[in-house]
């Protein structure tokens, strides 16, 4: 039996696995296939944009005429404006980019799936549940969040936003940050280690390049706002005072928010530019002009500089003038790679044969409006001009030209380009042209007048007729209606294609040389059966695996209910906690029984500059992923440490060392945790020597020491409480409980993993040859021990 034939059989077995009752539902709830997860991302982001778009329509209706025109109340308008921003940036644009990354990156690099398919599904469900938690605020008393999408402190605090809406946004964001972190580790490891033989960096398609940059940005920017959001949520639920106390408050939040928020702009725009580059290559027939220089300038200038310029959002907060000029100039430097991006795309067409099909028209529109959005942004980079432009409609116009114009048009180009690959169907060229023309005209009609409103404040729900802003706003509103209406054309195209109505598309309708078009559209488990079927025999084992797994869905819905329960009452909370625990238990059980096997390649492809160390490929990828996750976690701890440093610099009054805490006790407790690290090392030594029983003993010792650390920490908390030192005991209390809470949560997560490892050890599955799970766990545990060692002097001795 030939190997290709075995693959056909494996495919048939999978299709059979899809066919029991409720197969349709099971497939979409439990899938871990990167293509199906990609489609889930896609349709979910479309639902969210419908909500975000409806909110925009409401806002534009309210702004169409000056006061006393009163469709929305001030509170309703503030909810609309806040949720519109959150939904469009975090729940629509970046997930839409992620939809394409999920679907096409493995196809473009010749991989069978992403590195961790279950985590991929987990990322998706966390995104959906986080999004639902955020918008559930509309159904809560007092309505959704009203503090703007940036949630500036102290307006975001319980004092000034007493309703549950803001808390729900904080909790939803926490889930979203989890989703983004898992997703970025997943995609980065996929690109680093799963490229097919011959898919070198040089040959890698631009969309995959841009995805890589995007995910690197996310990996290192999310931890900052994760720390900020945790502080916000503890403020709102437990009574800490990070954003009420002037020593933290506005400036602290703005730093944490924009350290994430500014790179997020590139997160939104870069996948769109990847798609634009793909489309230009195909519809002009020419290679990207200066691709190497372009990728280097994005990777070396744009990505790192995007972290150094975030404070241009804070020019007016009173930061040091010299720092302001420095950031102004850095921002201008970061104009260079953006400008080069546009020029490279335009010059790509030189010498080509340009076919103005729907994907290309949207790509060109994205470039054109990006020029306007980019140049208008240079105005805002000036510390001086910012003194007037800050907080006005000029800024609103600027970033909508980037977000709606460049990013959304670029992603629409991606939709029209890849839709035939997704659905096997072509779409009506007339409808797509009409969609393009109406979108482009109405987009400019909506947002260009904003450049004239450089005295009108953002986020006001009404204005006086005497300002003369009425006519501009009226035109904008008409444009917004037109823009919203024209999107129904896109919806029509999508629904037709996904329902397989219309003309079937050939396998490669655009005659693209992009590698993703050569994948086998009929294959469920293998994107490229032919490539791997030709691997030398012996290395290639057929694998029948099921891509269905219910755990990511269960855990996510459990967490979602838990968070909703914190606001809406304990029954939800109880169900949520039980579901979460059940999901985590099931995940571990699946691993122990080997039910879920990852579709690992049998031979390693391009991995430069990393070297495959000879471990099983899946294990090697887990190891790489663990390191990457720890890098992100390190940024998270740095953000928390930064928070402490910030507070200490702004608050000269701090309890004298030793006056609050029992330092000998805490030192002893730290030693207990360090000891658990030593026992773990001994366990690893035994595992390497194949002494199973002794290894298990040391693992149990690790558990006892780790558990003791948690128990002693718990008593320390109780002791402090009894002395009246609580969450709300000013900044000393807030920082103490947040930081020990975070390290405690890490230790708790580690103990859960350790339980799994011990179970594995008892059942004899950790052997001399196969002890990778133990070694991976030890990476995490040692990291946690190191963090606690660093925390000790930072919290207690300074």
């Amino acid at each position, binding site marked *: 039996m030939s190997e290709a034939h075995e693959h056909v059989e494996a495919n048939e077995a999978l299709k059979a696995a899809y066919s029991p009752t409720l197969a349709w539902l099971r497939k979409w709830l439990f899938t871990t296939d990167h293509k199906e997860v990609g489609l889930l991302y896609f349709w979910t982001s479309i639902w969210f944009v419908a909500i975000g778009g409806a909110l925009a329509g409401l806002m534009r209706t309210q702004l169409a005429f000056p006061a006393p025109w009163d469709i929305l109340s001030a509170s309703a308008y*503030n909810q609309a404006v806040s949720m519109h921003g959150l939904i469009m940036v975090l729940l629509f644009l970046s997930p839409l980019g992620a939809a394409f990354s999920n679907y096409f990156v493995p196809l473009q690099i010749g991989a069978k799936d992403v590195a961790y398919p279950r985590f991929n599904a987990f990322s998706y469900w966390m995104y959906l549940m986080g999004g639902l938690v955020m918008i559930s605020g509309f159904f809560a008393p007092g309505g959704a969040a009203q503090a703007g999408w940036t949630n500036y402190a102290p307006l975001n605090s319980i004092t000034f936003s007493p309703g549950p809406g803001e808390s729900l946004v904080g909790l939803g964001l926490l889930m979203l940050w989890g989703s983004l972190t898992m997703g970025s580790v997943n995609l980065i490891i996929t690109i680093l280690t799963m490229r097919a033989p011959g898919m070198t960096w040089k040959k890698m398609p631009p969309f995959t390049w841009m995805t890589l940059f995007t995910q690197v940005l996310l990996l290192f920017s999310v931890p900052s706002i994760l720390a900020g959001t945790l502080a916000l949520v503890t403020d709102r639920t437990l009574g800490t005072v990070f954003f009420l106390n002037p020593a933290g408050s506005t400036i602290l939040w703005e730093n944490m928010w924009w350290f994430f928020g500014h790179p997020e702009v590139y997160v939104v725009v870069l996948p769109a530019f990847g798609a634009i580059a793909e489309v230009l290559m195909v519809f002009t027939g*020419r290679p990207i002009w200066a691709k190497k220089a372009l990728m280097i300038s994005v990777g070396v200038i744009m990505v790192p500089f995007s972290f150094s310029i975030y404070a241009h959002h804070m020019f007016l907060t009173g930061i040091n003038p010299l720092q302001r000029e420095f950031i102004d100039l850095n921002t201008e430097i970061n104009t260079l790679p953006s400008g080069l991006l546009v020029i490279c795309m*335009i010059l790509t067409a030189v010498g080509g044969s340009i076919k103005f099909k729907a994907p290309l028209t949207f790509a060109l529109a994205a470039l054109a409006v990006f020029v306007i959005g980019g140049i208008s942004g240079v105005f805002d980079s000036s510390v001086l001009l910012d003194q007037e432009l800050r907080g006005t409609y000029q800024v609103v116009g600027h970033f909508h030209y980037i977000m709606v114009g460049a990013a959304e048009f670029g992603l629409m180009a991606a939709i029209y380009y890849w839709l035939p690959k997704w659905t096997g169907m072509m779409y009506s060229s007339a409808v797509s042209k009409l969609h393009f023309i109406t979108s482009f005209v109405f987009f400019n009609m909506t947002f260009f007048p904003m*450049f004239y409103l450089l005295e009108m404040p953002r986020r006001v729900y009404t204005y006086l007729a005497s300002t003369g802003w009425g006519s501009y706003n009226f035109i904008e509103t008409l444009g917004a209606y037109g823009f919203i209406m024209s999107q129904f054309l896109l919806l029509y195209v999508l629904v037709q294609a996904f329902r397989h109505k219309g003309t079937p598309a050939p396998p490669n309708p655009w005659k693209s040389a992009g590698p993703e078009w050569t994948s086998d559209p009929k294959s469920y488990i293998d994107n490229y059966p032919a490539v791997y079927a030709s691997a030398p025999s012996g290395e290639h084992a057929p694998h029948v695996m099921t891509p269905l797994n219910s755990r990511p869905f269960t855990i996510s819905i459990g967490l979602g209910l838990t968070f909703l329960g914190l606001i809406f009452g304990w029954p939800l909370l109880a169900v949520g906690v039980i579901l979460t625990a059940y999901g985590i238990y099931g995940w571990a059980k699946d691993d122990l029984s080997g039910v879920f096997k990852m579709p690992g390649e049998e031979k390693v492809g391009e991995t430069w500059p990393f070297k495959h160390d000879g471990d099983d490929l899946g294990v090697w990828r887990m190891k790489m992923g663990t390191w990457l996750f720890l890098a992100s976690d390190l940024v998270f701890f740095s953000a928390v440490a930064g928070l402490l440093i910030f507070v200490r610099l702004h608050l000269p009054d701090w309890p004298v060392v030793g006056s609050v805490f029992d330092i000998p006790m805490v030192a002893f407790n730290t030693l207990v945790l360090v000891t658990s690290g030593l026992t773990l090392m001994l366990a690893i030594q035994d595992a390497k020597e194949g002494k199973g029983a002794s290894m298990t003993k040391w693992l149990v010792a690790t558990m006892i020491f780790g558990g003791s650390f948690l128990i002693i920490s718990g008593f320390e908390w109780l002791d402090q409480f009894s002395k009246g030192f609580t969450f709300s005991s000013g900044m000393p209390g807030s920082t103490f409980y947040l930081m020990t809470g975070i390290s405690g949560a890490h230790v708790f997560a580690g103990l859960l993993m350790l339980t799994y490892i011990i179970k594995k050890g008892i059942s004899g599955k950790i052997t001399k040859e196969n002890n990778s799970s133990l070694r991976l766990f030890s990476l995490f545990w040692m990291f946690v021990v190191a963090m606690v060692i660093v925390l000790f002097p930072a919290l207690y001795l300074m």
Partner: protein
Amino acid sequence: MPVSLALSASILQTPPPSAQLFNSVWNWYFYLGVASGAVTFAVMVYVLYRYRARAGKEISPEKSREDRNTWKGPLIVFALMGIVLVAVGAQTVIALPTYLNPPNDPGLLKVGVIGQQFFWSFVYPDNKTIACPCEVPVGVEVIFNVTSRDVNHQFGIPDFRVKTDAIPGVHNIVWIQPNAIANYTIQCFELCGVGHATMISTLVVVSQETFDAWLNSTASD
């Protein structure tokens, strides 16, 4: 002149010095920005027209995956953009000290500004606090020391092209030099809650005598 300055109510008078300074810097950004955009669009339109698909010209798809490396090209792009950016950036850097740093004139007037949901109050010498309007004498430099009592606000006088954050616990400074007797709008530019849109006050510029009389006759709020 900024495109939208024509909308401003103060067009009939000579703009105050801060607005003049703003306008001169704005003009650099505006004209160079429009020129850069126009050049980019011109190149784009030309390329799209010149290389449009024509009968008989087919390019095999594989050609689009070939190398097309150039280092000189991107460097030229960087250089051209660099010239524009240095030109505009220099305007900011040169004008900024005058714009930000208040003069050290002994005759100037210091007014404290307190933002609060949802109104501004103004603290005059001798701690006289007045809710609205904010009166200042013409021709005298006025320094506003801006802070907030609750959440973030942003204190802006659009006609003067000045603005700064009002943050609890932080004192930020802007300064103006009114050069005409007129009324100007003071508005909040940072979302601060349900009353954000209506957090409007008036800057009333009067003669020195009127100002003195007003300050003496007004009781503290």
